[in-house]
């Protein structure tokens, strides 16, 4: 079995309303010096295979097709 983590983040320059609101909330909770917050997603997946390269290709395909919105998001795939 292969365990993998996919991380999906917003591309640079794309507005991140969530990150913005969280940044403001942190400031109002007296955390100082927080200059920028961007929120993204992680997906932890288990694949029933032992072929790590095949798994990686498969995961990239999953990102392109479903997990990431490649118009506004970037993704990275890590295999454990």
């Amino acid at each position, binding site marked *: 079995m292969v365990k993998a983590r996919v991380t999906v983040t917003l*591309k*640079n*320059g*794309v*507005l*991140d*309303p969530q990150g*913005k*609101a969280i940044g*403001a909330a942190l400031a109002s909770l007296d955390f100082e010096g927080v200059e920028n917050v961007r929120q993204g997603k992680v997906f932890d997946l288990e694949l029933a295979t032992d072929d790590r390269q095949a798994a990686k290709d498969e995961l990239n395909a999953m990102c392109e097709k479903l997990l990431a*919105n490649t*118009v*506004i998001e970037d993704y990275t795939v890590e295999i454990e």
Partner: protein
Amino acid sequence: MPIEPEITEELVAGHGLTPEEFDRALELAGRDLTFTELGIVSAMWNEHCSYKSSKRWLRTLPTTGPRVIQGPGENAGVVDIGDGDCVVFKMESHNHPSYIEPYQGAATGIGGILRDIFTMGARPIASMNALRFGAPDHPKTRHLVSGVVAGIGGYANAFGVPTVGGELEFDERYNGNILVNAFAAGLAKSDAIFTSKAEGVGLPVVYLGAKTGRDGVGGATMASAEFDSTIEEKRPTVQVGDPFTEKCLLEACLELMASGAVIAIQDMGAAGLTCSAVEMGAKGDLGIRLDLDRVPVREADMSAYEMMLSETQERMLMVLRPEKEAQAQAIFRKWGLDFAIVGETTDDQRFSVVHGGETVADLPIRELGDAAPEYDRHWREPGRYTPIVASTVEEPEDYRAALLAVLGAPSQGSARWVWEQYDTMIQGNTVERPGGDAGIVRVEGHPRKALAFTCDVNPRYCEADPYEGGKQAVAECWRNLTAVGADPLAVTDNLNFGDPENPEIMGQLVKAIEGIAEACSWFEFPVVSGNVSLYNQTEGRSIPPTPVIAGVGLVPDWRYAASAGGAKPGDHLVLLGH
């Protein structure tokens, strides 16, 4: 300061300006254009802002009536509903952005139309959306439908406006060019309507709302890649909607308006800062001077060009009564929004923009706006389809199967799965949810009065005969309102067509408008606002002509409103009409 690119023929063409338009711009400037000016001119004179292909024909629509307080030309139309109240409404398309990124495209479409409503001082009370997608089995359709519906819900639900109607249709002709048309209506007091007409010289121009980013800055920047090595970072980005900020902006604007601080206000839509500033100045016969160093920005090192063309959502521009500055600022602080004085009104009727101490644009303001180019495009009578004679159609062998095929067609089926993803009940005034002929919403503060909303068009009819199709859309809208017991008041339209430079398509537009004008005159059902979306085509194939008509009616007593539900076994069915 980034080095600005040289203004070449390609760059001009990349900005969508014809050589004649560019010459006209040079004439206005009386010298070479700066890069920022090129951006400004292209934004103001594109089809979307200037209506250059359709203006001539839109003028033929009936736009007045005893109840009309404000017809086309402002952010939205305004119609009197008695007791000092008025309804403010408009429809707007977001077709192309929704095809590129369905969730955000649809969401920002809703955000845009809601701003149009509350900029005028009205609290939004109802929304609708007319949606057209490609064939259900087309590989992109599922993704587009789920994204668009989620985007509409994501924005409207969080903002807090009930969605009370719409249309949903599937046709392979929309495979490469879906339609997302959003309607919104709001309630205001008739004596407290706000417009974009600036008044007074030397008054502060104030920037309100969210910080400016590079969102939606035209692909034209890309075409001039050599002007900055960090172009990868500056790639034009999709606009992202932030309904939370918009809700705060709504509350802050309404508070601000109530405080008496607002002289003129305009939302920043397409080509945000440019369009809003030009419009406010041009309407008031004034000039506007902007100082871009004071514009709140989200990203470092934004160029003047980028700031002037940014389509960051959830922003407004306002002319402020100076003595109210402190109060106005406090309101915006409370709602966590930016408030910055970014310029002033002038008496020179020029639009001048300063950035980093340099004047980056200085153009006559009226010629950018009202006096933009206008075309009488070549058109020809569109081909009409010969009617099918009933006797030539073979009788179905199995009526049951035929009926099931009709009922089972995606465009005919129930749209419940769509509208259950929308908040249809928020505000507690929805009397009739989607699913009937028209949605009905009570008028707050009045014991019995309500408003009815519907939107309709049959693109197949319009293609067969644009004139009759246009008439039919108005008539259907009228019927849907009267069917629930409403007195029809007025309409807004969203004219979705293909390439106006194709005489056949232009003919469709001309004839459809003629039909709409004819029907609206006949019914005394004026058009008080609207939107035109042209160039809806892919690979040379255009969509069917789709002039959506959205109508508003007044229900004197919602208790007697009729609905499609509620029939009991044994009730009689009556067919009216012929």
